[in-house]
């Protein structure tokens, strides 16, 4: 087979030599535009997993590579003058220049023809080849020429970064955070040989401009960074190698092959440098492609199988890299974290490393994290732990005067089986069972504050004394079976009222017996829904009074926590969103106006609620619809709710309008919770596609939420 590889980087060279190993009769040519020793960048990092693949693929180059490796197993996080170390991470790195030299020599030994300083302007010169490999990097000519087939997309990241080297030899993969009058800068540093380390500096675009780095020369940039990181460098200097401040670009392609042409490594995909996987992915691509060509004699089948094997892996890395990049873009949000939590949050930023994984790698580190969490984390209030500590999920929490034995809340599914708002005996049994299950907090399904505020005829209510008695018995039973706490969710269904029991579907209007609906504006929820009446000021006063009355009944019933429903398109949420609130009075229009009524309701209703019991609001963090309420709005409203007497925000999203575009992916509510909690300093409760204890421990210890909720 005649194989032409465009690009003599690690992917191209490695693929070339592997093909010669598959069959020495293959004619393999590498065309590289630069001279053999002209390389850019400093060190490249490999994980244990990648090394295993390289060892199996080609022992001689593996031996040579690993001989010159810098190896370490620690990650240091230097923040607020303190260094937090965690171990067990097993990294290796090598100078990129050195890696290329090894691969070039190995190619020469095996008979791969490598031509340097050979620019390939287009594919016409390669027409005679059986296989053309585009291993020509992120600015790939091959990809550009066949753009219509590969269909690349580019996502430009918001931060600026620059690759320096330094003659300081780090002892660990080192993250450094330093601020000055221009903003916050971070360093990603790691050693790659006995004398040199990579030193990447990254900062937000605004910080970069404020610092005047946008029109600084290379020398000026070095001088600036050497001054900023003087304490970290300890007299060592920064080294430059065409080091320019750039924005990272995440590249994705619909497909990596077309006819007999295939893309490899950075030409096909990039993953943000903060998870350090570019060279790793490129060389793994080379191994997979050579393996596929060995197994499948037909080139087109081989290329398809290669892509099927690699695409899911690459997508996973790209997803993790995006999470990681987002973390660094928003790291300022965590400026108030204590160093140990800051470090845990950083280590778990991409979702690949969890509490459990860190426990395997470095049990002592996780013991410190858990100990810190138990004794210091917001809301612990217990000052327990240190030597022996429960995992975060089982750490008690305190909200106002109420102790919760652990940080798992269970929210009950609605069975719509109340009669005239009186909770059924089945609901009572289910709530008591939920309390017995070990959850620290049990939350009722939505409970209506008025008969006309019910979602379905079977929605339980708290608008009469008979209902109060029934709830009082339930609360007593829950308290009798253990330490579990019980919270009530007060709701008015608004435009989503008078629907059929949800076992038959959601938002399906009642065929008979429907009551008139009220909402912020007269916007029907679905095309078949009843058109609600826009509330008059008098009706708003009546509903406000109903919330006050329900809150005092909730107190009399003995509930430990009171929650207001400000999400999912129900009445109060309907005021918040510009999509459902079209009022022209002081309750519509600006965000301040739209949040006025929900805040009036909450502030008035909490007045009759004991000040030593917590108050929560379930708040929409995003409408998931164009022009809708978003997390920025939610953050502001959360701050106002806190002023209005709420001590906890339960994060929700979507269902403001029927035609929203939701995202039900893994942890879909956690980024919203992270944002609201850490922008506003208000405790949060989060659920949404959470399934494992490890997920809960990770979210809590990283400070992305204070309690997690499962639905049952």
């Amino acid at each position, binding site marked *: 087979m005649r194989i032409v590889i465009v690009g003599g980087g690690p992917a191209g060279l490695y693929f070339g030599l592997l093909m010669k190993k598959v069959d020495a009769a293959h004619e393999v040519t590498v065309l590289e535009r630069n001279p053999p020793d002209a390389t850019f960048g400093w060190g490249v990092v490999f994980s244990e997993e990648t090394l295993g693949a390289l060892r199996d693929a080609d022992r001689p180059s593996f031996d040579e590579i690993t001989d010159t490796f810098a190896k370490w197993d620690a990650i240091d996080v230097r923040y607020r003058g303190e260094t937090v170390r965690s171990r067990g991470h097993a990294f290796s790195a090598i100078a990129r220049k050195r890696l290329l030299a090894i691969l070039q020599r190995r190619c020469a030994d095996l008979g791969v023809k490598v031509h340097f300083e050979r620019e390939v302007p287009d594919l016409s010169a390669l027409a005679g080849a059986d296989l053309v490999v585009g291993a020509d990097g992120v600015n790939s000519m091959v990809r550009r020429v066949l753009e219509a*087939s590969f269909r690349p997309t580019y996502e430009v990241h918001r931060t600026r970064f620059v690759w320096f080297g330094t003659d300081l030899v780090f002892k660990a993969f080192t993250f450094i955070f330093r601020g000055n009058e221009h903003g916050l800068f971070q360093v990603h540093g790691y050693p790659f040989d006995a004398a040199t380390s990579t030193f990447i500096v990254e900062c937000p675009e605004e910080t970069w401009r404020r610092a005047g780095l946008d029109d600084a020369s290379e020398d000026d940039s070095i001088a600036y960074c050497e001054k900023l990181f003087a304490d970290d460098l300890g007299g060592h200097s920064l080294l430059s190698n065409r080091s320019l401040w750039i924005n990272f670009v995440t590249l994705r392609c*619909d*497909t990596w*092959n077309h006819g007999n042409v295939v893309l490899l490594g950075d030409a096909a995909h990039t993953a943000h440098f903060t998870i350090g996987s570019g060279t790793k992915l490129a060389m793994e691509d080379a191994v997979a492609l050579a393996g596929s060509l060995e197994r499948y004699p037909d080139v087109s089948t081989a290329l398809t199988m290669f892509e099927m094997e690699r695409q899911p892996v690459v997508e996973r890395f790209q997803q993790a890299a995006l999470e990681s990049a987002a973390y660094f873009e928003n790291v300022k949000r965590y400026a108030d974290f204590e160093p140990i939590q800051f470090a845990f949050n950083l280590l778990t930023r991409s979702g690949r490393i969890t509490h459990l994984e860190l426990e395997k790698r470095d049990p002592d580190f996780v013991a410190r994290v858990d100990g810190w969490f138990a004794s210091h984390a917001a809301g612990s209030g217990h000052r327990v732990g240190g030597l022996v500590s429960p995992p975060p999920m089982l750490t008690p929490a305190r909200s106002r005067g109420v102790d919760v034995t652990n940080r798992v809340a269970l929210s009950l599914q609605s069975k719509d089986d109340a009669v005239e708002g009186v909770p059924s005996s089945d609901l009572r049994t289910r709530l008591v069972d939920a309390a017995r299950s070990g959850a620290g907090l049990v939350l009722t399904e939505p409970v209506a504050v008025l008969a006309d505020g019910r979602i379905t005829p079977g929605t339980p209510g708290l608008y009469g004394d008979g209902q109060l008695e029934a709830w009082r018995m339930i609360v007593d039973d829950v308290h009798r079976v253990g330490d579990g706490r019980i919270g009530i969710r007060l709701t008015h269904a608004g435009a989503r009222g008078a629907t059929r029991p*949800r*076992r038959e579907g959601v938002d399906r209007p009642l065929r008979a017996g429907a009551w008139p609906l009220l909402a912020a504006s007269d916007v029907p929820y679905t095309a078949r829904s009843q058109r609600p009446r826009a509330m008059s000021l008098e009706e708003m006063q009546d509903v406000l009074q109903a919330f006050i009355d329900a809150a005092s009944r909730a107190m009399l019933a003995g509930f430990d926590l009171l929650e207001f429903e400000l999400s999912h398109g129900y009445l109060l949420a309907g005021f918040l969103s510009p999509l459902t609130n079209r009022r022209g009075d002081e309750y519509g229009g600006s965000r301040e106006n739209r949040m006025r009524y929900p805040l009036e309701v909450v502030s008035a209703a909490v007045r009759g609620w004991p000040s030593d019991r917590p108050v929560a609001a379930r708040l929409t963090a995003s409408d998931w619809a164009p022009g809708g309420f978003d997390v920025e709005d939610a953050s502001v409203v959360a701050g106002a709710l806190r002023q209005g007497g709420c001590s906890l925000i339960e994060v929700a999203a979507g269902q403001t309008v029927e035609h929203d575009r*939701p995202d039900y992916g893994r942890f879909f509510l956690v980024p919203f919770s992270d944002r609201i909690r850490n922008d506003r300093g208000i405790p949060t409760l989060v659920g949404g596609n959470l399934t494992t204890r490890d997920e809960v421990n990770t979210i809590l210890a990283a400070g992305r939420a204070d309690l997690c909720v499962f639905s049952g």
Partner: protein
Amino acid sequence: MRVGIGLPNTVPETAGDSILGWARKAEELRFPSVGVLDRIVFDSYEPFVTLGAAAAVTDRIRLVTMIVIAPIRSTALLAKQAASLDRLSGGRLTLGVSIGAREDDYEATEIDPRRRGRRFSEQLATFRAQWEEHAVGPRPARDGGPELLVGGSSGQAFARMARYADGYVHGGGPPRAFAGAAARARAAWSELGRPDSPRLWGQGYFALGAEAVERGAEYLRRYYAFTGPFAEKIAAANLTSPQAVKDFVRGYEEAGCDDLVLLPTTSDLSQIDRLAEALG
């Protein structure tokens, strides 16, 4: 998990009696269900007509559309066809509906694809009402109409499923892809406040026996040609050995699938025996 089998209604040049033979044989070999696909601009049989014929030659087997492209059909007519098939078959219909993926099917049926999402939501809101109110007869075998599944992979598809349907029908792929979709389906269900959990249906392609492998791959390349390079991947994922079938079935079972339907890629009757044998 139950494992059903597809009818070759979209395998080109399949003879009419061959479809009937498949249905009979599938029931004889005790497959719990037969599934059909939907395509307009293709050499394929219409799903309701196909299942109507299958219903006539079988007694027990469940009849499943996986899926019917709803927006290209009139809502009332679709509701009527489904109710008729359900009633004629003694309540054996499971109706899977979705938006479909091909613009040419929309062009051919003169439906504007740009409005298909909204139209689909309106249809879902309407079907049940039409069945329940008997405005569009016949009265389906079950109160509220046949079991209704929604397919699709967008967040909106999951929300529609949770709002209106009884379950989710996945569009195919390795067990891991199904597991991811199943987690989203459950999350959407719980978010929308539905009690219990959605029924989860999965599907996969197979071609067993040396002579079937290449023909199966060829069919899949043709059927999915509109997806561009993705067609090759679908063809490559065809289950072509008993071991591959077993692994796939196990993977789906572990991912929480309730009903898996394995779809043929050639119309040769011996495929049914081979599949039954592979499943053991």
